């Protein structure tokens, strides 16, 4: 079976203005959502208490809320978690009170309301630890970006590198916009997913630019930048799409079967793969073109690259 029986000939570079507009709209929408609605940060970042409980019968949200309010937790978030018998209770860190005490009191309140309730999981994070984890997360993000920037700059000519990195920045913004829109819990595992997606999305761009280099070396005649880029993207199109499919298969399986705690993680990867593929195909090469990439730039780079010389 083959979806792409012949190398397609889509004019990606020519049509880039349409994709720019679309991208601009999506980016603006994401940033707006982030500013207006904000992310629903998990307790990994804010500190606080999360208690996951399971009831013998169907869980009654309102009763649970009432019991918590009676114990002094009027602001407790109560939501379904997985099945109809499970509830997740979340309380932000109270000023000055010890999170451990808070956790114990919440469990007491719920047990007083329904003695048969089973506590499946508790997480108590002190506010300082929340701040530290946020900082660590930020550092991980920074480190990843810098590492990838350095690598791509070293491996590719700088206009291609810039195009790649800009496309890579655009992906996390859209994922964050998605989380702001859906208000799914944004915790450490989602951040981990975003980092994995950044690495993965650069994959696609790298493959395309690798092909650009090869196209240039292979053609005898003077080829225009536009044709060179178009050719590269078209030639790698089948591989890019197929890879995304194969990854999507597994991640959708994760989302559906992997349990409630992985839902945020898998959603982030699903959105990331779709957006990443889109950005690699439509944005990365187009940006390189608009940065006035010329074949001469690549030939200059070629002179100092022994690996290219090794290719037949």
């Amino acid at each position, binding site marked *: *079976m083959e979806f792409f029986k012949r190398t397609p000939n889509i004019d990606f570079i020519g049509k880039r203005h349409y994709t720019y507009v679309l991208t601009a709209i999506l980016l603006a929408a994401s940033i707006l959502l982030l500013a207006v609605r904000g992310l629903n940060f998990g307790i990994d970042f804010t500190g606080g208490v999360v208690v996951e409980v399971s009831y013998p019968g169907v869980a009654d949200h309102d009763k649970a809320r009432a019991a918590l309010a009676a114990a002094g937790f009027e602001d407790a978030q109560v939501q379904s978690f997985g099945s109809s018998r499970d509830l997740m209770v979340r309380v932000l860190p109270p000023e000055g009170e010890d999170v451990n005490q808070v956790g114990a009191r919440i469990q007491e309140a719920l047990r007083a309301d329904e003695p048969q309730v089973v506590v499946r999981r508790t997480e108590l994070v002190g506010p300082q630890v929340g701040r530290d984890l946020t900082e660590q997360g930020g550092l991980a993000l920074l480190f990843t970006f810098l590492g990838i920037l350095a690598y791509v700059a070293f491996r590719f000519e700088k206009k291609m590198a810039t195009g790649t990195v800009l496309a890579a920045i655009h992906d996390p913004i859209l994922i964050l916009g998605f989380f702001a829109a859906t208000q799914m819990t944004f915790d450490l595992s989602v951040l981990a997913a975003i980092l994995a997606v950044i690495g993965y999305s650069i994959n696609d761009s790298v493959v395309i630019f*690798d092909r650009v280099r090869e196209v240039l070396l292979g053609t005898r005649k003077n080829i225009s930048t536009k044709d060179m880029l178009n050719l590269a993207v078209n030639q790698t199109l089948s591989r890019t799409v197929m890879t995304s499919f194969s990854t999507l298969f597994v991640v959708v399986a994760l989302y559906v079967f992997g349990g409630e705690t992985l839902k945020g993680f898998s959603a982030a990867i699903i959105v990331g793969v779709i957006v990443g593929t889109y950005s690699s195909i439509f944005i990365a090469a187009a940006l390189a073109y608009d940065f006035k990439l010329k074949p001469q730039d690549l030939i200059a780079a070629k002179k100092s690259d022994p690996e290219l010389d090794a290719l037949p």
Partner: protein
Amino acid sequence: MGSEGEQRILGVLQANQIPYNTSYFEDDRLVVRFTSVDDQIRARDAISDAAPGEYIVALTSASRSPRWLRVIGLKPMALGLDLRGGVHFMYEVDMAAAIEQTLQRLAQDVRTQLRKERIQYQAVTVRGESVEVLLRPGASVDAARRVIQGDDPTIILTESQIDGATQLVATLSPERIKQRQDLAIEQNVTTLRNRIDELGVSEPIVARQGLDRIVVQLPGVQDPNQAIRVLGATATVEFRLVDEANNPYEAQQTKRVPVGSKLYMTREGAPVLLKREIIASGDQLTDAISGWSEGRPAVHVTLDSRAGQAMLKTTTENLGRRMAVVYKETKRLEEGERCNGIRSGNQCTVEEVISVATIQGVFSNRFQITGLMASEANELALLLRAGSLATPIFLVEQRTVGPTLGQDNIKAGMMALAIGAVLTFAFLAVYYRTFGMVANVVLICNVILLVALMSLLQAALTLPGIAGIVLTIGMAADANILIYERMREELRNGNSPHAAIQAGFDKAFSAIADANITTLIAGIALFAFGTGPIKGFAVTLVLGIFTSLFTAIMCSRVFIDAIWGRRRHLKTLPV
């Protein structure tokens, strides 16, 4: 825990109709094995209902791997807490208090020494991170310098004049501060480890994290509150003289203790009478190390100068008599919990004599305790260190996962893995035909290699870790896809099948390498800055990349070359 206890426990289980497989003793703990987690939980509930507070029950999983595998030294995969159930605590050490403690002790020492040398001073105060000594006019500054500096290179002295009087400011050097911080952490880690032994948890983890945090992981523990209380007990030691004049056994029998003494029990269970006066206590102990003295095992003890003086006086007056060390531990009790020692309110204090030794010479603040075996010396040193005033710690993070959730997580993870794998295999087989099947075999090799590597390294598998394996399957397919798409393209361009195979592998290589390196960078960043389950994900991601690269490039090539590369007349490639 003896056979009597065993009968009782088994009786409770039988009365509640809870089936169990076997029961046996390990050290002084009773181990009972069940087939399912449900039985395990029911048993725990039954025992705590029948005998509340009397036993400490820890739930754990025992390996079912065949004996011959274990004998070779192979271990099953390590599971993270979110798959096993258990508790995770993070303590923060109050470093500021540690430094403050050191400064106060220094100030006290300085006061004592200055008085002894008859150097007049107006005030010795602790301010900020230093000790300020204001001398009286006319006092010998050089003598004061010598006294304060002693032979300690880690104290930095500066001099200044205030209203005609000299002021010496002593600050701790950065090395000293770091030493103190390291000691604070080490003390607490030792103390926590001791207490965890008391909980009977198998495979606990106690480790330093960062500059001032300690991580404690107790798999199988279900009641975090009990664990917190046990871990949060405060301990101290006391040095006292043995009351040689009276008979401890008599006091024990008649229950009448002579005035001025107190009855204690040693760890072996023998009674001993000690005088009430405390010569030195834990907060004056600066160090205790086990080592050798004249060829025999010994514990080298160092006290601060005030305790040193008390010790000097005592040893001078009591040569030949015995001195004992008492280990005291205080912890908070819950409703209905029994106290094995002295109860006061909701605090339970347990006191034990851990060492009785004869004073063989006159000493002050440095001495050795001998007459022990090497293992006893180690243990005594450990206990002394645990009992010296440890820096206070606070619980700043706590995560508990119940055992049922652990099981559910495993099921969910495995299901996602299975379905994701099946989907990928189907896709590859359908889209790339026979070569797709080769890719499937290679993918299976990849996962096996990944799991083997993780088991070998004993890297803990967490739920995000399983997600990482699932992701690895998807991304590993990528490398094969790159190669096959390349082959298809070569065929489309009219190249011969053999050339297509060659070209597919060669040309795809640089793209595969480049692409995986970027994900590797992200994985390393996650590993460096991540904690807990995220670290598990980073580990599978990074290891998965290596195994994918290896299997995709080497194994695919070997397979395809072996099967098709040899055929002379290859018309077309089944890709």
